[in-house]
């Protein structure tokens, strides 16, 4: 059984420049505590209001042409993260 009092895993998040250019003072590489991809989105929204809307639609889910990868897998909002994970958010190929 998970220890709910334990801090969430610390993960590295890599953001695409096409995204960070939209938000002043944002960064392409940050470290956050997150148990799931949804926690990362919430933290990004907290740091740079509006960024969550750029990455997720109102369904809610990760936007169709945005990809979130970690550990060699493509993850959705409920994708579980482990300590030390490197989460890469990328713009997908279109056209």
């Amino acid at each position: 059984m998970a220890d709910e009092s334990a801090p969430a895993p610390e993960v590295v998040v890599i953001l695409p420049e096409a995204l960070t250019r939209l938000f002043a003072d944002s960064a392409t590489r940050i470290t956050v505590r997150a148990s799931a991809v949804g926690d990362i989105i919430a933290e990004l929204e907290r740091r740079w209001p509006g960024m969550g809307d750029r990455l997720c639609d109102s369904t809610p889910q990760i936007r169709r042409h945005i990809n979130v990868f970690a550990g060699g897998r493509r993850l959705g909002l409920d994708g579980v993260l482990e300590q030390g994970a490197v989460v890469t958010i990328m713009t997908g190929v279109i056209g």
Partner: protein
Amino acid sequence: MAKKTLLLIGTKKGAFLAEDDGARSAWRLRGPFCEAWPINHVVGDREISTIWCAGGNEWFGAAVWKSDDLGRTWSHSSEGITYGEGETPIKSAWSLGRKNGVLYAGVEPAGLFRSDDGGASWRHIAGLREHPSRERWQPGGGGLILHSMVLDEEDDRRLWVGISTAGVFHSADGGASWEPRNSGTRCDYLPEEMRYPEFGQCVHCLVAAPGVAGRLYQQNHCGMYRSDDGGLNWHSIENGLPSSFGFPVVVHPRDPDTVYLLPLNGDVLGRYVPEGKCAVWRSRDRGASWQALRRGLPQDNAFIGVLRQAMATDALEPAGVYFGTTSGSLFASADEGESWAVIAEHLPTITSVETLAVDG
């Protein structure tokens, strides 16, 4: 202080601004702005030197961009531009309207939002999508878009919108309730006995004439129309035009009887100017007769298309008229359409043109 004219240009790859020399004879282009997002409409407010751009990006969704310094710096927001969790995501912001400090945005899929804080946050005007016809609205070639809005000169509660392909709708109570206003506009794409439905028309562009209450014009997929009663009844004014098909329509800034449009050759024939000869068509008598204006416009092998929001007038004397093409050329007339000059070329596909008077 001398006044200059600023052209606000939306394109498939960002917004651009073109500023004149104070005489509308030389133009300086700036852009692209908005990170080269597809921008469907650009409007400005002279009083606060602010410009807004409506757009949507395949990766990042819909947003309205804003510049408080005439294009030097930009921010964007989509806060509140949503139909709610679980509802169809909004793909793009399509059209903007500004009146008495309120900014309106039409979006795809069709709906209307308002901002009371200059575009920082938005609120859905839910009444429109609560109309019982909504389940039967069908997307046109450009999607199910709310592309036109008319904000009444006198009464803030009265507004009209154009939706492809649902038709014209009117609200007299600030958007709480709506009714179709399509009587007299036809649907050539339906069987003869079904050609005049209550809604479902493919309105392409809807504008109001200045100074005459209830005077509206619309370019439709199937004809050109005028209404003198706020859209309750529409009258065909396409007699004398080379085609019933086109996208933009604009009205002279002071003369409600003078209207400009740019007919294309037809919906299934390529959608370019007839015979490859470019002309703006002008009526001085509210659509009773039409005159082709060609001087300075290309007359050979000009397979030009002009989109629904890509034509505008300014408020100067004589009035300027402007249009941008799908092939990225921007044309201007400083004499009410009598003569034309190309003032920019090789831009991305131009989706919209508006004008803004600024201090020189």
